[in-house]
């Protein structure tokens, strides 16, 4: 039921957001509807599909499984922060070149899962890539072209030109 308002202060993609929210407001709804950053998508709202993945203080988190009030004081990063203006991040560029997306609904969550993964593991094997992807559901691609995109992105991030 509707209840008391709490003030939440977070940084999203380097910008400060502050607002009164109900304790029950999901972080995903806060990001999408209060901060207006609709690049983060909601697929299941029960923590399985991974579409709503964002970085909370650098770590990938399902924003549908957190309340906005729990993120008070945190620094968040969403898909909107990946590209540098019109220049795509190597992950985004690799997804485009390898047809790593179809409808694109699950894609932002996948990108935000992979960003810290590739930072921690710059030369992953296919098996490691598949394991890293295993918390994100995609219903369009069958994952194969995503795996190829991650391989390409890793190479690009290592400064190679695959």
């Amino acid at each position, binding site marked *: *039921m*509707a209840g008391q308002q709490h003030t939440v202060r977070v940084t999203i993609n380097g910008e400060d957001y502050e607002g009164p929210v109900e304790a029950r407001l999901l972080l995903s709804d806060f990001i999408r509807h209060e901060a207006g950053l609709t690049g983060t998508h909601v697929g*299941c709202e029960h923590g*399985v599909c991974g579409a709503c993945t964002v970085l909370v203080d650098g770590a990938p988190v399902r924003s549908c499984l957190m309340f906005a009030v729990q993120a008070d004081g945190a620094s968040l990063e969403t898909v909107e922060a990946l590209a540098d203006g019109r220049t795509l991040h190597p992950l985004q560029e690799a997804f485009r070149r390898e047809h790593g997306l179809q409808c694109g*609904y699950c894609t*932002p969550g996948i990108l935000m899962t992979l960003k810290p993964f590739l930072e921690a593991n710059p030369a992953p094997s296919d098996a490691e890539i*598949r394991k890293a992807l295993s918390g994100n*559901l995609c219903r369009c691609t*069958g994952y*194969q072209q995503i795996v190829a995109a991650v391989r390409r992105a890793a190479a690009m991030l290592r400064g190679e030109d695959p």
Partner: protein
Amino acid sequence: MTTRLIGEPVERREDARLLTGRARFIDDIRLPGMLHAAVLRSPHAKARFTRIDAAAALALPGVHTVITHEDLGTANTPMPLLNEDPGFIHPRTHQALAPGQVRFVGEAVALVVADSRYLAEDALDLIEVDYAPEAAAVDLVAAAKPGAPLVHDDTDSNVACRTADSNGDIEGAFAAADFVLREELRPERGAAQPMETRGVVARYDESLDQLTIWDTTQAPVSARGVIADKLGLPEAAVTVIAPDVGGGFGVKIFLVYPEELLVPFAARMLGRPVKWIEDRREHFIGSNHERLMVHRIEVAATTDGCILGIRDHFLYDSGAYCPYGPINAQCAQAILPGPYKIPAVHTEYEAVYTNTPVVSPYRGAGQPHGNFVMEAAMNHVARALGLDAAEIRRRNLVRPEDCPWDSGRIFQGNTPLIHRDSDYPAQLAKTLEALDYAGVKRSQPAEREQGIFRGAGIAFFVEGTGISPYEGVEVRVEPTGHVHVTTGYPSQGQGHHTTLAQIVAETLAVPPEQVVVESGRSDRFAWGVGTFASRAAVVGGNAALGAAEAVRARALELASDELEVAPEDLVLADGAVHVKGAPQMAVPLAALAYAADPINTLESGTEPGLRAADYYRSPDGAFASGVHGLIVMVDAATGMVEIEKYVVVHDCGVMINPTIVDGQILGGTAQGIGGAFYEKLRFDEAGQPLVTTFMDYLIPTAMEIPPIEIHHMESRSSLNPLGVKGVGEGGAIPALAAFAGAVEDALEPFGATVRAVPLDPPAILALIEGRCEGRAAS
């Protein structure tokens, strides 16, 4: 020079927005003053009610209205019946809100509109309905029997439709048979489950009397017609827009879901924009399902494995209503003989009402079911006759020299299934080679002695695509030099804007960046039907080609006047028309478009503009085909299956964009593997759904889907100018059968016979232990 674009792996123009979070999906739409809706859904599979008490809900601050069936008036008349069937006995369609009786858990009973979705859901809990539950018909086989609880009280049986189709001398075939296989085969219930659920946003502009509806539909033009009709509005006052849509696979085409009517109704009533976004649980119970059929098949064969005839009597679970017609049953029976030369086929189906959500097409629309039945029967006849599974297929295939070969079956859209433009024996040979089928077979005896259970499975498919009705495309060259392409059918991730731009840019010899594509908006192009049945490339693609060719002809005619050179001496290149051999004598398309709009000198009876629309219908549809082959390793202790290799041999005719084709095949195959091993919807005996989350409905992850090796056999279709055959569903269709065949082959030492999919680990352990003959555990 004309740049070749058709057939090139052009990168998708859709991607940059999707990758950067700048796309606009339904829940990204935010309008000033917008309210939020939630749907009250039936908690009972069958119940009557007389009273909906919404007083407490309405008293909650922030709640604007609660709409029930009594508020809807004529908007609540039954929805249209699509796909008439000659065998209909009791056609029954759903209504937007249940009027006094509910027939499945999840059926819409009321709509709450409030300041926020949170408040709207609070209000749902405060509505009281005096349900009087009744006995429900849940199990398909039981529901079909006389005396079963009736889903619709005004009928005398749950059989909605009983239809037979026959070709060839079926009695003669069985009389001549050396061997007859008889068995029951059962593909279970599943669902499409796109990653984005459904949603509707509606805005009513009172001053203009215009209703604008953003809708995750696969058929905005068709939806507009139904919504306008139900609301008593002219079509001209209603616009339906499909925004970016996060996957469809069939579940997002329906005419119409309750919310597609309720949300516009509420927006008009309240004079404020209203948004409704389905949550995942609602999607499991309030959106349509697919799959469950029970086939009793008889196959007449000679001792050398020649199939003489098939009889297939099957039950089709329609769910609580049948507004889509028994379309999945129609497709299953039509596609049953696949690529095989079977002289006599008799099919008979009963579409049966049950107190479960409505069933409508999901990727393949009944074809995965028909395919599973035929391919499983092939395996079982082979085993009974001591033949190899590949060999029995080879002996029965329609061969190129037989073509055109009329199967005698009639597919969706009244399309005759006539085999042509495909080489099935070559497809089989390629599959066996890529799989090293012979090697697997050679190793099996020694492996089995060591307790290693490896098996190979193969399944053919023939996929009906490109079906009626038509689609249309308009191509217009602007005086800016841009080419504006519009069509009514929307995309849910297929990359139509890229492929349409490829077709138009190549035909008009303009750079693809000059081509602007818009689709899925009834205010831009209001003709056509929708995106389904692997038909967009066939019907839409050929309409785009026709429109672009008409524009090219018109450009040559205009340039001929301008340059005073005969049209046959002119060519299009680099965005201009020039004289053959004299590229300096040229006039840009932009200038021709400007000249084609003679503001002061247009003659009555002529049309301005360098533009054309074309409408395409393929009377004979189109048919893609191919083979899936895989090798599995079954762990006999746990029932887990590992796919060691997966090969797809695929012929979809000319590939407009091979990368997009691969994506369609890979994604379809993954969905097929999901349906074969992981995904199953279950209900208890009272009709309560037991699977309503992704924790229960297991969509495969990147860990479960193996690398898939694709081999294209690109043989041009003779049925349409582009030579395409359609590609959307071919990946999904044979995966059930191929997986089942591989598991059965691996478990041959246990005498396992697979008669149902999905084959989850408990079902596989049951096969190993001989506890039940392939019936998936429920």
